[in-house]
Structures are given as structure tokens and as C-alpha cells.
């Protein structure tokens, strides 16, 4: 199966799903799962191949699809996350309205993403990018209510991004004469650095918006929290990473390592890194203040993207490997967390962190998977998040960016703060009476979640598997290749041996467990049998989940408003006011209208005779 057929199958699959839905919802569900899983197989088979195919000609421009190791990695992540999300949707979305439309859009987004990562020229990149953008918009708005506002925010920023991108693309076309990545890559070194910077800035705006880098992040919290949960997983797991893909593409495939490092006196990639650092630090602490589980995760996504971009932009091989690996990991554990929260929402009907609690008794599997996800998010050893973060930190420290490293490391503590809040407020604490009948999540919800947590753990202990692939990518971009082993990474200034660490931790756990068994046998007691100064407190009065970090939020809340968002809203308001003023030109009075005509005539004559404008 060649690449064009792959995309075509994906596209037709999407529409076929829609049509089948008209016949029977059961067939549609089965088919959606089938088509999304089916596509993984050829993608896997494409590993290591270097296939290129020109599939269409648009306005005289050849549209090319090509698979490279980088796009293979992204494509696999995209397809896997989408498949899991489709599987999850089966029960999550059951009984909701307009499901045909939902599946169509979900698979269309998938097609768009596959197209983005597989395309080898800018015009098909743009086309797939836009298809992804608007279908995402339709999906974000799916949940009605506040989702509309979120969708609006998303699409406006997205359109701004694509406007910037199309200017960049066409400017490249005008100057280079081709939109093939290879040709552009050979063109860029020949052009002036000012022009390269202009192009890079244009594209950084686009990818920054999609990727939610600091001044462009404002669409993300709304969109992620309001979208249907399975789609939030796709959104956060892979869709925003299309921006990351774009960053890598432009910084390393098209512009090339040397140019990126040296352009603007070396300040460009440093500037991006600083933006990424800002993206880490503020959203992390804004996430601490959130009371909506998905909103919290959304802010966390922004922060984690900051890590990815920080790793990629810092310009060393170690950082690049870490950044790309963190992309992969973030896709896994953030999708996992969104799906877990989705499962909770499905069973309880709420995702308000202040009213949930104690669900560990009711949904143990979901809890443990979410716990693994949270560990990955924090970067606890034995999860994949640890390895990638370790690589990023090490790159920063050895690259002598101690302040960036500080921000990245300190962000981790913020991560602990909010992820503990997430876990605690949903699963721990006391179970409110109203949730006493909650059942465990259905099978189709558990499968993706369990699979993803396995990914998190396995790649945490044996990080060499994906790191080898990533290292070939980084080597192909001209970075120093790393010494990757199956158990981790060895480099001149330090070894990371995850198997060793795993053995140590495992042995220690066993030891402590034996110690634990040595003591007198424990007695299991009910959760409400808890010390309360001698009082017996009835159920439902003991739920300490409200304002979990009250002292902290009291201190930092005034400084952590999303000023950028406020600024954008103000801007929108200004435009609205201005548009209202513009509208007043059409005042309804015929006399004015005629005077417009006469005045315009007069102005034209004056311009010609008096000012010689034209």
C-alpha cells in the first residue's frame, strides 16, 4: 500500500463511516474501530522505508507524500492515539446526538494529521493542516454551551496561524520556485538570513498557535476542556503536536541545524527556548488553580508542550532526542489522563474537582492507570516521562542554560502539585454519597487506558526502543548521535540506566514490603473510621477536596491571571466596537449616501489634481 492509498483509505473510511451510520449505528462503530486499527498495520510496515510519491498536481504544483523516520514516528503516534480514542468513544459517546458526524470528524482529523506528517511539500502540508483545523473546530464545538466560545477562540487563532503560514509558503514559493521540502531546504542556505528569519517567524507563529506556545496558548485551555473527552485525548495527545512536527520540520529539515543555531546571532533558537520556558512555568501554576479536571489537564498540556519545544529548540542532540521523546510520551500519558478523566466523567457526570472524590473504591483500574499517567506526567522514574525529561534537563545543564534548566525542573514541582490535586480530588479522599452507585468503567474504556499505561511503563523501563528511532532522526538532522542502549542512554558525562534504576526500586519495594509483612497483621477498616478528635463524623461531611491548595492559591492567584487571554479578549472587544462604528457609516439616510457618492467623486478628483496620488 503506498502513501497516497493510505491517505485515501483514511479519507474514504471517514466518509464511509458517516454513510454507514445512516444505516446502523452498530456497523458504524465497528467500522470506525476497524478502519482506524487497520491503518496502523501498513504504517508499521512502512518503518524504515523511504517512500516518496507524487499523487496530485494542484495549480501546477506537485503534491508529494513521503515517509521519513520522523513522520513515521508521528504517524504511528497519531494513528494509535486516534484508534484508542475511537475505541474509547464507543461507550463514551453512546447515546449522544449526531454520532455519525462525530466519527466523521474524528476520522477526518485523523486523516488531516496523517496527511500533515506524511506530506513532503508545503502545499499539501497546508491543505491537510486546514482540513485538520476546521474539522477540529467542528469537534470542539460539539458539546454546545461553553464549547462554542472555545471553538470560536480556537478557530480564530487557527485561521490567524494559517494566514501566517500561507504567507510564508507563498513567499517561499515566489522566491524559491518550488514547494518541495528538499528544494526549499537547498534554497534556504542560499538566501539572506533576514529572509530566513522572516520565514521562520511566520511559521513559528503558525506552529506556536497550534502548539500553544506562550503568547498563543489561550485557545487551548478552553478547547481541551470543552471538547468531548476522547477527542481531548487526540487534541492534547497528538493534534497540538502537529505544531511540534512543524517546528522540527522547519527548524531542522528545512532550515537545517547550522542555520538555526546561528541565525540572528544565535538568538533565534534561544528566544524560542525562552518562550518555551515561559510556557512551562506559568501554565503549570495556572493549572494548580484550576477546579475543572480537564481544564487542569489542558493547562498541563501547555506546560508539557513547553518542555517539548524547549528540548527541540535548545539545539543539541540530547535536547532534540529528549524533546521528540517527550512528544511521544506526552501523547501517551496525556491521552491516558484525558481518557481516565473521561471515564470518570462518563460514570459520574461531572469533572468538577471540588465535588468528586473517593472513586478509587469504585474504579480501581481507572485509578491505577491514571496514577501511572500522573507519574508519567510528573516524570517519576520507571515511566517514560522521566527519561525524556532527564534528557531535556541534561541537555540544558550541559548546554549551560542553568536558568532554563531551573525553570524546567521547577515546573516539575508544579506538575506534582497539580497532578496530585487531580488524583486526590478524583480518586482519593472520601466518596460522596451521590457517587455510591458508580460502577467501574466499561470495557471499551478500560482497554485504551490500560494499553496506554502499559506504553508509559514499558517505555519507561526500556526507553531504548523508541530512543533508537529518535536518535536516527536526530542523526539525520546533523546532530551528534547518542549512545543509545536498550536500557537507556550512555554519554560522556553520565549514564542513564533505567534497568538499573528499575532493579533498585523494585528491590527496595520488595524489601520494604517484606519489612511491612514483618509487622503485626494489619486490620482493614472503613474509610470513614478516621480520627476526628473523637467525633464520629457522618458520611458526606468529611470531603476535603474544596480549595485544596488554598494557602498557595491565595498567594499566587493574583499574579497568575491569563493576561494574554485578557489582552486578546480586549482586542476582540476593540474590533467589535470598531466594527460597530464602521457599521454606522450605513446610517440609513439617503442624503448621506448621496453625499458619500459626491464626496468620493470629489476626493478622487482632488487626489488626482491636487495631490497627484495616481
Amino acid at each position, binding site marked *: 500500500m503506498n502513501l497516497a492509498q493510505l491517505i485515501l483509505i483514511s479519507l474514504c473510511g471517514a466518509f464511509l463511516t458517516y454513510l454507514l451510520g445512516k444505516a446502523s449505528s452498530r456497523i458504524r462503530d465497528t467500522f470506525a474501530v476497524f478502519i482506524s486499527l487497520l491503518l496502523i498495520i501498513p504504517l508499521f510496515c512502512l518503518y524504515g522505508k523511504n517512500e516518496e510519491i507524487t499523487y496530485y498536481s494542484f495549480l501546477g504544483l506537485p503534491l508529494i507524500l513521503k515517509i521519513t523516520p520522523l513522520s513515521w514516528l508521528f504517524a504511528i503516534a497519531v494513528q494509535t492515539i486516534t484508534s484508542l480514542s475511537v475505541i474509547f468513544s464507543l461507550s463514551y459517546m453512546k447515546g449522544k446526538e449526531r454520532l455519525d458526524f462525530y466519527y466523521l470528524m474524528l476520522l477526518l482529523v485523523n486523516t488531516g494529521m496523517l496527511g500533515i506528517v506524511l506530506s513532503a511539500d508545503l502545499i499539501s502540508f497546508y491543505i491537510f493542516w486546514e482540513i485538520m483545523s476546521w474539522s477540529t473546530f467542528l469537534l470542539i464545538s460539539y458539546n454546545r454551551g461553553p464549547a462554542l466560545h472555545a471553538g470560536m477562540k480556537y478557530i480564530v487563532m487557527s485561521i490567524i496561524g494559517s494566514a501566517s503560514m500561507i504567507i510564508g509558503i507563498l513567499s517561499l514559493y515566489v522566491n524559491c520556485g518550488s514547494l518541495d521540502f528538499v528544494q526549499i531546504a537547498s534554497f534556504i542556505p542560499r538566501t539572506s538570513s533576514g529572509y530566513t528569519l522572516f520565514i521562520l517567524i511566520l511559521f513559528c507563529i503558525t506552529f506556536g498557535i497550534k502548539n500553544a506556545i506562550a503568547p498563543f496558548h489561550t485557545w487551548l485551555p478552553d478547547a481541551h476542556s470543552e471538547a468531548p473527552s476522547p477527542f481531548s485525548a487526540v487534541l492534547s495527545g497528538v493534534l497540538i503536536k502537529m505544531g511540534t512536527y512543524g517546528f522540527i520540520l522547519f527548524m531542522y529539515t528545512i532550515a537545517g541545524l547550522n542555520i538555526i543555531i546561528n541565525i540572528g546571532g544565535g538568538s533565534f533558537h534561544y528566544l524560542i527556548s525562552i518562550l518555551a520556558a515561559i510556557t512551562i512555568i506559568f501554565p503549570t501554576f495556572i493549572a494548580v488553580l484550576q477546579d475543572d479536571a480537564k481544564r487542569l489537564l489542558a493547562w498541563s498540556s501547555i506546560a508539557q508542550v513547553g518542555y517539548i519545544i524547549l528540548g527541540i529548540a535548545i539545539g543539541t542532540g540530547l535536547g532534540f532526542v529528549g524533546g521528540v521523546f517527550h512528544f511521544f510520551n506526552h501523547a501517551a500519558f496525556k491521552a491516558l489522563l484525558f481518557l481516565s478523566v473521561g471515564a470518570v466523567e462518563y460514570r459520574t457526570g461531572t469533572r468538577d474537582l471540588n465535588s468528586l472524590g473517593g472513586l478509587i473504591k469504585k474504579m480501581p483500574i481507572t485509578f491505577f492507570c491514571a496514577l501511572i499517567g500522573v507519574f508519567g506526567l510528573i516524570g517519576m522514574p520507571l515511566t517514560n516521562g522521566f527519561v525524556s525529561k532527564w534528557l531535556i534537563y541534561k541537555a540544558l545543564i550541559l548546554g549551560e542554560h542553568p536558568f532554563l534548566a531551573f525553570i524546567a525542573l521547577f515546573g516539575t514541582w508544579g506538575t506534582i502539585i497539580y497532578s496530585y490535586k487531580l488524583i486526590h480530588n478524583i480518586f482519593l479522599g472520601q466518596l460522596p454519597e451521590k457517587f455510591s452507585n458508580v460502577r467501574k468503567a466499561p470495557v471499551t474504556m478500560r482497554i485504551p487506558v490500560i494499553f496506554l499505561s502499559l506504553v508509559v511503563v514499558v517505555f519507561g523501563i526500556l526507553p531504548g526502543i523508541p530512543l533508537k528511532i529518535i536518535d536516527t532522526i536526530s542523526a539525520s538532522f546533523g546532530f551528534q548521535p547518542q549512545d543509545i542502549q536498550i536500557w537507556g542512554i550512555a554519554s560522556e558525562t553520565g549514564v542513564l540506566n533505567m534497568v538499573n534504576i528499575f532493579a533498585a526500586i523494585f528491590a527496595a519495594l520488595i524489601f520494604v514490603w517484606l519489612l511491612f509483612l514483618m509487622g503485626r497483621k494489619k486490620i482493614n477498616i*472503613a474509610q470513614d*473510621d478516621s*480520627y476526628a*478528635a*473523637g*467525633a*464520629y463524623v*457522618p458520611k458526606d461531611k468529611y470531603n476535603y477536596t474544596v480549595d485544596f491548595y488554598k494557602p498557595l492559591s491565595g498567594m499566587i492567584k493574583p499574579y497568575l491571571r491569563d493576561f494574554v487571554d485578557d489582552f486578546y479578549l480586549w482586542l476582540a472587544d476593540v474590533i467589535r466596537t470598531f466594527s460597530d462604528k464602521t457599521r454606522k457609516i450605513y446610517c440609513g439616510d439617503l442624503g448621506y449616501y448621496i453625499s458619500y457618492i459626491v464626496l468620493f467623486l470629489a476626493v478622487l478628483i482632488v487626489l488626482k489634481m491636487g495631490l497627484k496620488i495616481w
Partner: protein
Amino acid sequence: MDRNDIKKWFKSPDKMGDKYSLWAIYFCTGCGIIEIPPVITARWDAERFGVIPVATPRQSNLFLITGYVSVKTLRAIIRTYEQMPEPKYTVGFGSCPINGGMYWDSYNTIKHLDKYIPIDGWIAGCMPRPEAIFVAVTHLWTLIDQGKAKAYVKYREKYGLYRKNQEMALGKLDWPPLYTTGGGND
């Protein structure tokens, strides 16, 4: 004091541990609250015997009830006692828990605390001086050594009786019974 007797430690570590690591939770009302602080601070320093105040019943193994016990506080006393891990020891301090003391004719005090929870030892007096606590502790050591400080076993065995007494004083209790054993009047 046989704290430094290593042979004994090897012979019966549980008893020795219990003896020299009495972590006390105090239930202090009235004048009892005045007498406890000197015990644990510099003047008498209970810590040299391993007796330290702890904050929750889960961590304690010595329960000191000092001062009178009203109906309302009885509820908390029972709850606290039931939350303590075994082995656990109780000491009533002052005449009020023993027989009501000067509140013997009050409608609202509990006259005989041992009807509701088992007591290992009493310290009589109104109020006893802090030294009396040390006397009680040393006495408790002896009892532990001899295996006589088994009030918690009694509570477990005659739980039905205790529970009935408790319900008689407090009305229906809103927590489930701790043990299922020991019903009847006995």
C-alpha cells in the same frame, strides 16, 4: 527499671517495647488539663521514661483520662479508645472518672467511667500531682510485665456489655459496633 536489660529485650520485645514506649493520648478536662503540661515539660519530663504525648489515637498506646467526664465527652472518649491500636492501656486520673468526685450528684457527668470503657488503673486524688502519673506509669510497667494489663482484651470479650452501657448513657450510637463478640449481660 529494666530498660537497659538487653536480655529481657531479646526475651520479650513486645512487652519491653510496650513498657518503655508508652505514647500517650490525653483526654483532659477541667483541672486535669492543668496537671498534664508539667508532666511533659522540663520540670518532670515524662519523655525520659519514653512517655510522650501524641496527637492521634492511632499512634498512641496509653490513654489518660484526666478530669470529669460528661455525657457529651464520653462519646469522644469511647470513639478515641476504639480507634487506638492494640495493645492499649487506659489510666483514669483523678476522682472524677472514678466515681464522679465533686460532681457526684451532677445530672450530666459520668460517674463510673469503667462501665463504658475498661480501665487498667486509677490514680485517685483531687487533683493528683504530676508525680502520681509517674507512679501510675511505673505501676503500669509492672502490670504489663505480669501480663495483667489486659483491659483491651476485656473490652473485646465483653463488648456487648460495654456497648449496651454506652447506649444506655448516650442513646443509639451512630457508628457500627467494633466487635461482633461478647453479647449478653454477663
